């Protein structure tokens, strides 16, 4: 018999840790985006929308979309959807064919910070 008491004790403590936690706290990771990360879209999107794995705090969550010259092509500030606090959207000016970079900084509701960036292309690559 292989150490049943030790394995049981470890399992009980691990379960207690997991069950003792309050749900809803964690880092906000990017789940997916539209346009998708690294994708090419045939026509210019009206906005970049990102969905995160956790609810975001508006005051410290930002996203900027820039072209290859580094110019901001956003048509306004990034906004969190009030109906879905895990969704962040940046409205865009009319885009020309080219490569665009999305840079985001997120603060989840428990003050964990995360950040990231990705590109997408408009028009044929």
């Amino acid at each position, binding site marked *: 018999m*292989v*150490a049943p008491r*030790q*394995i049981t004790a*470890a*399992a009980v*403590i*691990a379960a207690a*840790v*997991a069950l*003792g*936690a*309050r749900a809803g*706290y*964690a*880092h906000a*990771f*990017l789940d*997916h*985006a539209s346009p*998708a*990360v*690294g*994708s090419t879209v045939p026509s210019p999107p009206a906005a970049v929308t990102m969905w995160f*794995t*956790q609810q975001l*705090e*508006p*005051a*410290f969550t930002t996203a900027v979309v820039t072209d290859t010259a580094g110019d901001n092509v956003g048509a306004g500030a990034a*906004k*969190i959807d*009030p109906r879905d606090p895990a969704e962040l959207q940046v409205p865009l000016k009319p885009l020309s064919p080219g490569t665009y970079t999305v840079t985001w900084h997120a*603060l989840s*509701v*428990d*003050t*964990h*910070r*995360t*950040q*990231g*960036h*990705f590109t997408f292309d408009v028009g044929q690559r």
Partner: protein
Amino acid sequence: MHRISCRGLAAVAAVALLPGAEALAHGFAGDRFFPATILTDDPFVADEMSLPTITLNPTQSDGSRELDIGSDLSALITPNWDFTIGSDWAHIRTPALPTVTGGTGLTTGTQYQLFINAEHEAMALADLDVTWRNTGNLSAGAPDFTTLSPTFDFGKGFGDLPDSLPWLKPLALTGNIALDFPVQTKTNGMQNPNDVFYGFAVEYSIPYLQDEVKDVGLGPPFNRMIPLVEFALTSPFNRGYGGTTSGTVQPGVIWAGQYFQVGAEMIIPTNSLSGHGIGGVVQLHFYLDDLFPHSIGRPISQW
């Protein structure tokens, strides 16, 4: 207009009013998330706990086989300084001999985060571990002498590679090098050599691939997986033990969730001194900063 919750107001107030009050993230350097690796020491301080780590080691030359059940805890004292404690329980079966069970000794440590460079996804850490004498069963491998082990740990993500190499950007390397200094050079007629220990982990992050490079459409559970290979070697270099390097190569995968991660690796000995056949290890690892951000998941002091 956004409606901010009470919880949100507290978060905003904390970040706005208290320098450094934001929750410490485990294993982040810029866009890069480094998982807690099983064999290689992590290059970051954190509030975290591994429980359990179950290791079935390769068979040794005398035919013995050891199963270890371990746990370790790391707690932040300040945002850049933590304290660690860990121990294993061993179950050793040797042909024609009684089974041996017991603790393999208590290890404590203190770690300081030297730097985190977000732009280059790089970090480094200095660590002093102490393995304490007579804190386990000597027959199960617990030492009868205390050992001090100063260690240097580093991590580097490759997200700063040129855009012409997009598929290599999810790669990351972590590693450490340690020197073991036994407090007593000889106990019970046996020499206790100095060892040099070095380990590396090469990781390929699927989350990084899909969040930073290209969304290839992998869904759960694959979108949170980080395949990796770990290497570790121990080389005694004096007191008659020179040339007896042993080590393992451990390919596997870590699944990193929001609150915990699960890792599994094969254990392949590098030479006959390290055993023969294949072993394996599985680990459940908790992110205490995410599970308990307002209590044990925060530094004791913000100093």
